[in-house]
């Protein structure tokens, strides 16, 4: 390529990488607050930058948090207390290394790339629990237990949905997966897996119907209660990073990634396709009440498991027919 930067550098610094993650944090928080406000007949953030419709609101929030006092409680291990959210945020962003946003725009092309990304996403729950544990607070303690249980609810359906798609495509290479969808998108070939993935995504990012670990009326902010200042950005933003990663993964797995474009235009196509996952995740916040933890577990091991097993079966049938 005759670009000033090679594709993997773009991937590292701009789109799936650093700039994309922080940009997504800003845009997603703004979008969420605006959309929810729209549903509730409000304006949402506005006066901070009126011509932009309040787009600077998350920026102001970030600045406020960065320049507010950093309190490290005395009863915690202060080093771990400060390190846990940084590690969490970093670990949530790590799976993008293996996901391609456009041909060539990937940090580490790997034949099993997407499978590794799925596993990395699942591994992060450990860090949330570790973070809650370091905070040593009644609310974080309850939040940690709830996080463990919720993880138990979504892990298997998410893995099964990914398995269904890998069986269908016969590969976990991001390029191979997208190539296999050149005629029909994965979401059309296997809608069951798509739905299972979407619900598992809501659970994994603790979005609204499953916002159980950080249920505000019950456990303040769950695992994030003790954090203020910059560390709160990381602790709370980690969820948005997870949404970003899962949306990116989903658009490659189910929506044909950068097709029909190639090259750098593919990056924009991928961005637009990510909205298919991001917008519902934002909107359900305004619509649904919250499930109890046992209801969430029952959904995960009941209907969702059945759905994802059916998705694998559908993939097997497709595979044998071909």
């Amino acid at each position: 390529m005759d670009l000033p930067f090679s594709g993997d550098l773009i991937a590292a610094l701009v789109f799936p990488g650093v700039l994309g993650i922080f940009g997504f944090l800003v845009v997603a928080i703004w979008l969420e607050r605006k959309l929810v406000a729209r549903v509730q007949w409000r304006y949402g953030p506005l006066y901070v930058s009126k011509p932009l419709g309040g787009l600077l609101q998350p920026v102001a929030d970030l600045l406020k948090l960065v320049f507010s006092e950093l309190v490290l409680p005395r009863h915690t291990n202060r080093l771990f207390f400060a390190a846990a959210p940084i590690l969490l945020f970093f670990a949530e962003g790590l799976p993008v290394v293996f996901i391609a946003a456009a041909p060539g725009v990937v940090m580490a092309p790997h034949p099993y790339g997407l499978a590794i990304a799925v596993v990395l996403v699942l591994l992060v729950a450990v860090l949330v629990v570790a973070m809650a544990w370091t905070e040593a607070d009644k609310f974080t303690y309850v939040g940690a237990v709830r996080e463990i249980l919720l993880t138990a609810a979504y892990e298997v359906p998410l893995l099964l949905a990914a398995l269904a798609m890998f069986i269908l495509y016969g590969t976990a290479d991001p390029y191979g997966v997208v190539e296999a969808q050149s005629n029909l998108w994965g979401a059309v070939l296997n809608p069951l897996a798509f739905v299972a993935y979407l619900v598992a995504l809501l659970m994994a990012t603790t979005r609204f119907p499953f916002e159980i670990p950080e249920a505000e009326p019950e456990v303040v902010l769950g695992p994030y209660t003790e954090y203020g200042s910059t560390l709160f950005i990381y602790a709370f933003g980690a969820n948005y990073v997870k949404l970003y990663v899962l949306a990116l993964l989903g658009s490659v797995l189910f929506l044909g990634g950068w097709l029909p474009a190639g090259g750098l235009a593919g990056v924009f196509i991928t961005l637009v396709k990510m909205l298919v996952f991001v917008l519902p995740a934002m909107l359900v916040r305004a619509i649904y009440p919250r499930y109890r933890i046992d209801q969430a577990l029952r959904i995960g091991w009941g209907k969702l498991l059945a759905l994802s097993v059916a998705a694998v079966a559908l993939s097997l049938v497709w595979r044998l027919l071909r």
Partner: protein
Amino acid sequence: MKTLVSQAVARLARWGTKWSLWPPHLVTACCGVEIGHIFGSVYDAERFGMLPMGSLRQSNIIIIEGTITLKMAKFVKYVYEQMPEPKYVIAMGACAIKGGVFYGSYHMVPASKVVPVHAYVSGCPPTPEAVLKAVSKVQEQIGHAEN
């Protein structure tokens, strides 16, 4: 050079703080009912960047909602003390100013005796517009602060 940098940083910090005042849930009396209104559809304090927060570690403005009894004053003080540094207080309602209907009662304290107050709102209960006016007053104060 150093002062220039620190001035620029302070301006940024003030701008951020100004547009992102997050109150914790601290309801001391009947004015608290009005708070629901302020964040509801009609008055929508989120336009000014306010966001009700659960934990004190992230919030930076207390809206004292009406009467503070001696018993509750301990908790108001405690909440104020536990909030991280740039922090502001709005005292809402006649009760928080001087006692309102409980004026002269043995068991009530004016807000200014408990915590430093940045803006007062009069009324019993104050209308949501009045509270929002006070919020923008506080924002002006933050924006024009020196240092």
